[in-house]
């Protein structure tokens, strides 16, 4: 599988030019020296080119699209940045790696006062073309995506298959119906093999009203795909026109759903990806726009994607369409997109690149259709889901309860982390409060365990820095089964805890536990678990893993993740996983004490001493300080 480097450009408005020029900064690059502010550029991409792209007719046109792609790249780069990108591409290629190109914008479009200026979000970065590399975005080795963050800030979300997808179809009165219904059918067809294999659960909600959508979302989906018209207008009583998705009223009329409300509907859900597609946008096309209002400046879903990946949203990535998407292109895109998305470890932008390629095969490389999809993401390394091999067959109600519990656990963890940041002056007062929140988390975790059905759980514990905590690994069976082999992976932050050893037993009998791996990851394989017996409904000890909490650990909570579990049992049943949580008492205070003590020691050592002598002495003193504090 291809691995990637990241090349992240940050675009901003240059204040000195009133926003007409843009500032460029390389935020991430495989070579550290390339990172930094690079200066300003005058956008070469023009309004005329934008209007042309927004015009449905006259495609494919390879020469024109390359010209546009060239202008786009020149709007993002000066000769320095150009040289940097080429060097990064070359290095990535030589190392057999891909290069993810991410363009982040840090300024709000509204701040540009010049009506004729191209807005940052209007630049179709997906069209970047650079001789001799050709177009970047449709290549899986150089995927192109957008971001609103100067750095990616969320880790992959755990996904236990099946992937649950809700397709929302709305075609209100007065807006074109045919294409949306047709596309809905095609999406269903594209999903069929995945649904048949059990990898995807697909629900289609037709004629969606906002209330029905809200009720559906309680069933906990991972992906919501809107097949609806978009618009940009005054919504209800709101005078500031905004982007919206056209849902329906009970009578079938247009019911606009704007980004803010959609964001709230998706909060506290499992939805991490939103796809916004419309085969015919409700936004005015250039041809339909009165001359005095040309060039048209508003994309149908403009602003919704941005709102949905704001820092407090649950959603981590949005695929949107910057121009009207042709039906055939849309079908090709969606089919390829979802098939690829379920492959493990592929960045979402590479998935989109793969889907762009499918559009090119269908339409032509000179067609604007493959440029149309945009990906906004805030995922670290572009990875949206950490896909588990196991399948989850929990019912809707249980899944909903688990999501609610997860939300409460996260809230309490956040409070505990906040409490841990406090210094000695509050420590006595807060001790009872910390205990209270630890107990709450343990209680909520146990409730979750009760809901999970069959589960493999790593039990955590409480310890101080420097102490060893023994974590039990258990298997909980809800119905009798003979368990042959179990494989799983334990992942932990190596700076926070150190694996010290393991013991294995079940009902007093030794089991064969093989382990390998280092640096925060242990691959565990347990063979002949029930020794051929059928185990009754109960919870069984499998093994005990000892972890020493690092003396410098400042985190109040350390999670040892249980992942990639595979349970060979008869009868075959699904098994969920539950991570181990180690509560570290007084972590922040002790880490601070240690750091201060070491700083004092370092200061006291004569400057003239050789480095090796100082290091050796520092090590001894550190060990002494650690023992003393412990």
């Amino acid at each position, binding site marked *: 599988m291809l691995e990637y480097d990241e090349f992240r450009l940050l675009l901003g408005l240059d204040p000195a030019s009133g926003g007409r020029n843009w500032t460029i900064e390389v935020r991430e690059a495989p070579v550290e020296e390339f990172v930094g502010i690079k200066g300003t550029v005058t956008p070469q991409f023009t309004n005329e080119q934008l209007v042309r792209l927004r015009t449905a007719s006259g495609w494919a046109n390879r020469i024109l699209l390359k010209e546009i792609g060239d202008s786009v790249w020149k709007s993002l780069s000066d000769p320095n940045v150009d040289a940097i990108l080429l060097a990064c591409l070359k290095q990535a290629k030589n190392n057999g790696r891909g290069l993810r190109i991410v363009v982040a914008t840090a300024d*709000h479009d509204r701040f540009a006062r010049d009506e004729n200026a191209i807005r940052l979000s209007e630049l179709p970065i997906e069209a970047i073309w650079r001789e001799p590399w050709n177009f970047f975005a449709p290549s899986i080795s150089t995927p192109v995506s957008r971001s609103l963050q100067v750095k990616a800030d969320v880790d992959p979300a755990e996904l236990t298959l099946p992937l649950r997808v809700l397709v929302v179809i709305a075609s209100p009165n007065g807006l074109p119906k045919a294409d949306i219904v047709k596309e809905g059918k095609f999406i269903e067809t594209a999903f069929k093999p995945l649904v048949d294999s059990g990898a995807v659960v697909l629900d289609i909600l037709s004629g969606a009203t906002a209330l029905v959508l809200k009720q559906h979302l309680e069933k906990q989906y991972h992906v919501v795909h809107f097949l609806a018209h978009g618009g940009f207008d005054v919504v209800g009583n709101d005078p500031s026109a905004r982007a919206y998705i056209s849902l329906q009223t009970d009578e079938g009329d247009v019911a606009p759903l704007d980004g803010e409300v959609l964001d709230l509907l998706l909060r506290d859900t499992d939805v991490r990806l939103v796809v916004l597609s419309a085969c015919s946008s409700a936004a005015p096309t250039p041809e339909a726009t009165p001359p005095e209002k040309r060039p048209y400046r508003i994309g149908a879903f403009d602003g919704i994607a941005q709102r949905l990946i704001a*820092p407090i949203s649950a959603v981590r990535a949005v695929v949107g369409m910057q121009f009207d998407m042709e039906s055939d292109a849309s079908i090709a895109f969606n089919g390829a997109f979802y098939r690829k998305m379920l492959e493990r470890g592929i960045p979402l932008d590479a998935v989109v690149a793969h889907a762009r390629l499918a559009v090119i095969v269908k339409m032509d490389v000179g067609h604007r259709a493959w440029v149309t999809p945009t990906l906004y993401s805030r995922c670290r390394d572009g990875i949206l889901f950490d896909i588990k091999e196991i399948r989850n067959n929990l019912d809707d109600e249980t899944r909903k309860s688990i999501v609610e519990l997860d939300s409460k656990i996260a809230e309490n963890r956040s409070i505990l982390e906040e409490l841990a940041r406090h210094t000695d002056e509050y420590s006595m007062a807060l001790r009872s409060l910390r205990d209270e929140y630890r107990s709450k988390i343990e209680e909520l975790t146990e409730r979750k365990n009760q809901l999970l059905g069959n589960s493999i759980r790593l039990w955590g514990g409480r310890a101080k820095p420097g102490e060893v905590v023994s974590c039990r690994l258990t298997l909980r069976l809800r119905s009798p089964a003979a368990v042959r082999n179990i494989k799983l992976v334990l992942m932990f932050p190596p700076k926070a805890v150190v694996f010290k050893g393991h013991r294995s037993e079940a009902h007093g009998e030794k089991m064969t536990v093989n382990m390998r791996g280092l640096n925060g990851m242990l691959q565990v394989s347990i063979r002949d678990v029930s020794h051929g017996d059928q185990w009754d409904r109960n919870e069984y000890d499998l093994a005990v893993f000892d972890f020493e909490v690092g003396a410098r650990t400042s985190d109040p909570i350390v999670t040892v993740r249980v992942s990639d579990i595979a349970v060979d049992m008869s009868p075959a049943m699904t098994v969920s996983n539950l991570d181990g949580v180690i509560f570290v008492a007084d972590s922040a205070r002790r880490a601070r004490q240690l750091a201060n003590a070491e700083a004092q020691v370092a200061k006291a050592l004569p400057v003239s001493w050789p480095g090796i002598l100082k290091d050796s002495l520092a090590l001894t003193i550190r060990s002494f300080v650690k023992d003393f504090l412990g």
Partner: protein
Amino acid sequence: MDAYRDIVWDFLPDQVSASATGDANASFRLRVFDSEMALFGATPDSAPTMEYSVRLRLDFGALYQDMSNGPAGGFSDPRPLMEIGRSLWHDLPHKVTSRLQDTGVLEKSNTRLKVVSDEYRVNDLPWEWLSDGDEYPVLVRSVPVLAPTPPLSVKTPLKLLLVDATPQGANVLTRRSEFQTIALSLPVDKIRLERLTGATAEAVYRALREYQPHILHYVGRASAGWGGASISLLEESGTPHWFSAAELASALPLSVRLVCLSSCFLGQYQGLTTSAFSRFAYAPAEFKIPTVIYNQYELSEKGIESFWRAYYETFVASGADVTKAYVTAQRATGGADRGALGLVIRDGCDRPFRFDEEGDFDERLVTELRAQFAARSVNKLAEKVRVLGTLASESERRNLLEEYGRASEILKRLM
């Protein structure tokens, strides 16, 4: 201690002829309430006492810009700003403004006008200049919450972390460093100062963690984008490192209950019309950022000194009354500088601190923090129910009531 009697003006969008890109004027629905809680339908009588359609002029950003392009060091002539204030007053229905006069909000400091809106265009208006031509009301801005956060018990001196992240070569606000001016304005016996210059994100995290300040006073620049507003900290190289409201919220320890954002902001540059500090101050209530005082436009060096000296002195002397300190500072500043800073109360709390010099307040502190967490939980739910309106389910409403009941119980223990 005086409790404030509030008059709340809530501006909602109304039908309007404005285009997508915005006109110079827009219509809003103005609802007047007697308390912020009524906005959430939480009081027995949650109906507004008055409701009107008003049309407001919105192009004051351009005025700021024109003024910013003038001589450095703030605006010398307050008359254009006073004119804006009178114009705002006259744009409002007579019954609304006369109620202010009738209830004495213009005279008595314990009656306070709170301006509330989700609309950034309303929030960008220079409400601090609102006036009948003779007097100014006691006016604050607010990000409304249903459950207030109780004051935090502290012993003086209060701890203030002064962070200077002005990038090299930036157009700093005054000829003398604003940082120095603020430092010299503090009542040193009541407020202990820790300075952090050339602040990197890591240094700020460390200082917040180790110093556990009660007040964070930031001097630097801000920017706003789709991803939200950010203040600028520095990279090791001295270049800006944008630090979002969400990042700050997660970095702030529980001890920080007041954030002051001052100095140069993007609004002073030609062509950019709005203050990013305002976006920061109005970050969603869910962000754990407490009450914020922020620059709206440039002020003079003397103004900075007068404002912050009066502010911090009154803040300590009045038992951490943010409004009283703010109004006193405005009066002490005068001239065009008078309305340069806005106060956004974000936690429903009039006094973020409770000075307790004698007591061993460990037990009380636990209850205060428990109340703070409970309030957060309630306010998150309340905001969801408020924005969803009719889409909010019965169970969400029920859940809100239960959480609210729990939070109220904890608050009662502190009374």
